């Protein structure tokens, strides 16, 4: 065990910290899940990209700085500690990009990745449908072969699409083999939301932001990839036809585990929670000891999550990635986030309901156990694929 950062990692941390200190907006930006807020966040993404901080772990050719996984963790820690803005590009850079790196052709990587890191293309996820949520394999949206035009015709409806109303592109699963059942016969498609036949309707989430959208596809044409920029701009396919389930599953483990929710985010939140507790104590607020225990529990769990991540990253670096164990990760961080925010609301008491960052954070935390595969599904995965209980 060596729980210390090397000199070069320390140096990297200093560099992150310095840049963030000089550039993070003093006032928090309006929520990126509203149209005004999204525009401001876009400016922030351009700034991040121009300074080389948008996608630190990517190759420099695609807008990154070839950072190691450890350095990425450090960047995330500093990013959240600095109170930097939410990443409106996250569905692209954290969920789609790993899939492009794994399954995309060289031409696809060269085309999509630089545009993604520069926030030119803004990606949203098209997986859930009105009747396929936890039961994702029940997808009905289909893609029909059009040999005459040389491509695929997409139709159907996607929903719960985060920031769909503000995004420019969609990645998602479509049924290419109508005879095949469940997770067979699905294909992973990429398509611009500006394509003819696409209709996007935003709607309000629990927190009031119009961060959700439903996407209607009415004979949207995606041409076959001939390696040219023109066809890739009009969409494409990742991986083989009919292999979409396997391709998609590679992104779900990134979403559940490391890349979407680095410990830096929770450490920053736990530090703010402690600060709030100190403030309330100093102000002489009469607090039940149980509230302070809840604060302590949230802090301990955050430390446990951070250490767990260090172990996971060690495993990835040494060639033993977490696999199905990433479901532990997802259940833990999402429920920790809820408990952490509940503790803050309890510290605030009757003032918790006032419009403020803790209530907003609480509302957002409540989505964690639902998105990226509900925690009920994750518990099934833990039981079946980690512990080895019978499926049927």
């Amino acid at each position, binding site marked *: *065990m*060596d*729980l*210390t*950062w*090397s000199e070069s*990692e320390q140096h990297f941390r200093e560099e992150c910290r310095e840049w963030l200190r000089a550039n993070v907006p003093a006032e928090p930006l309006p929520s990126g899940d509203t149209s005004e807020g999204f525009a401001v966040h876009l400016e922030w993404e351009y700034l991040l990209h121009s300074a080389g901080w948008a996608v630190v772990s990517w190759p420099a050719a695609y807008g990154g700085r070839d950072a190691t996984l*450890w350095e990425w963790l450090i960047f995330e820690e500093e990013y959240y500690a600095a109170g930097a803005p939410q990443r409106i590009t996250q569905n692209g850079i954290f969920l789609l990009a790993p899939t492009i790196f794994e399954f995309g052709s060289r031409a696809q990587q060269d085309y999509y990745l630089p545009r993604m890191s520069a926030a030119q293309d803004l990606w949203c996820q098209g997986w859930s449908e009105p009747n396929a949520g936890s039961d994702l394999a029940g997808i009905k949206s289909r893609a029909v072969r059009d040999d005459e035009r040389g491509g695929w015709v997409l139709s159907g409806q996607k929903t719960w699409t985060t920031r769909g109303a503000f995004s420019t592109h969609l990645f998602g699963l479509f049924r290419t083999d109508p005879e095949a059942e469940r997770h067979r016969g699905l294909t992973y498609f990429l398509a611009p939301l500006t394509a003819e036949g696409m209709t996007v309707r935003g709607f309000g989430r629990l927190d009031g932001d119009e961060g959700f959208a439903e996407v209607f596809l009415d004979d949207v044409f995606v041409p076959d990839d001939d390696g040219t920029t023109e066809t890739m701009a009009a969409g494409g396919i990742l991986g083989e036809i009919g292999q979409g389930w396997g391709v998609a599953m590679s992104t779900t483990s990134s979403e559940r585990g490391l890349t979407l929710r680095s410990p830096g985010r929770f450490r920053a939140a736990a530090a703010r929670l*402690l600060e709030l*507790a*100190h403030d309330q*104590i100093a102000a002489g607020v009469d607090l039940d000891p149980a509230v*302070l*225990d809840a*604060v*302590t*529990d949230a*802090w*301990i*769990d955050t*430390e*446990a*999550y951070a*250490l*767990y991540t*260090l*172990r996971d*990253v*060690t*495993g990835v670096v*040494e060639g033993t990635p977490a696999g199905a*164990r990433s479901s*532990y990760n997802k*259940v*833990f961080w999402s429920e920790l986030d809820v408990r952490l925010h509940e503790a803050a609301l309890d510290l605030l008491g009757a003032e918790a309901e006032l419009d403020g960052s803790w209530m907003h954070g609480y509302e957002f935390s409540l989505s964690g156990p639902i998105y990226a595969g509900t925690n*009920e599904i*994750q*518990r*099934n995965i*833990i*039981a*079946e694929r*980690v*512990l*080895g*209980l*019978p*499926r*049927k």
Partner: protein
Amino acid sequence: MRFAPTEEQAEFRSAVKALLADTCDIVAVRASWGGEVGRHTDVGQGNGRVERAWKGLADMGVLGLLVPEADGGMGMTQDAFVGIAVEAGYAGLPDPLIETAAVAPPVLASSSEPLASEILARIACGEVTVGVGFGESPIVPCASTADWFLILTGSAAHLLDASAADITPLSSVDGARHLGRVNWNADDSTVVVSSDSDAVALAAARNAAATFSAAALVGLSHRMIDMTVEYVGERRQFGVPIGSFQAVKHELADAALGVEFAEPLAFNAAHLLSVGEDATVAASMAKSRASRSSQVASDVCLQLHGAIGYTVEHDLHLFMKRAWALSRQYGDFRTHRAVVRRALLED
């Protein structure tokens, strides 16, 4: 940055696991129970020791792992021991391994008394066991077979010769524990380390007891969960294995989740002990989480075994009762959480 055992540590741990699977199997654990626990006369007439396992551990160098090389040990650090404590928990080893091999040696090594050095050498070769207690008249496991007692008060560590000690045997719910109360009043003649000479060593002993009992609880929890996974995979009701029911899956997933996140806390605390940093908060985080998650695991595992688990015919109780005891020994979940709370909010 690297948060994993070294290859050498991992191999050593595997070897210990194999040794315990062989020498401390379920028959040996059962046999270590004492007949004096009247309600449980169906299990052994043992004295709380598994001698074959102890000898094997001595031969492998486990007992002397933390004993300085000058005293005949291996002179290793606590991060080499933490995985072994998990395995001892998993096996249900009743012997005072944590106390003898991981709590006592660093304290004795910090003493300038010749006796301390002598005992260290005898620990390393497996000749003596050391029972550890905190405070006045402590209750100590394996008291009836201990050769020495290391009693830690707020201000000193005392080394008592067990043959001269006044011990009141106490019956534990876990018949392998062979508890005894050491009736004893502090007296300068038995001091091996005082807070004036080495307060750090005394604090480290408390942290080591919390850290390694947390690790043992992680192992015990894994054992109970493994037994339950096996049982619910075989037991059929309504024509299917009960493990196929979602209600069963989710209970087990939650039990496993708690243990999964307790383990890195124990390894982190052991790491801090190794590098000589203050491990107070880290050890309390580890013991708090391991205690709570082992309680969840034992509750869930008993429930999922149904009526068979509620018998002494089935072996689950051997591990469950150990977990009940160990999750409260050296500080329970709330006591340790309070340590963290004070460090965070009151300092």
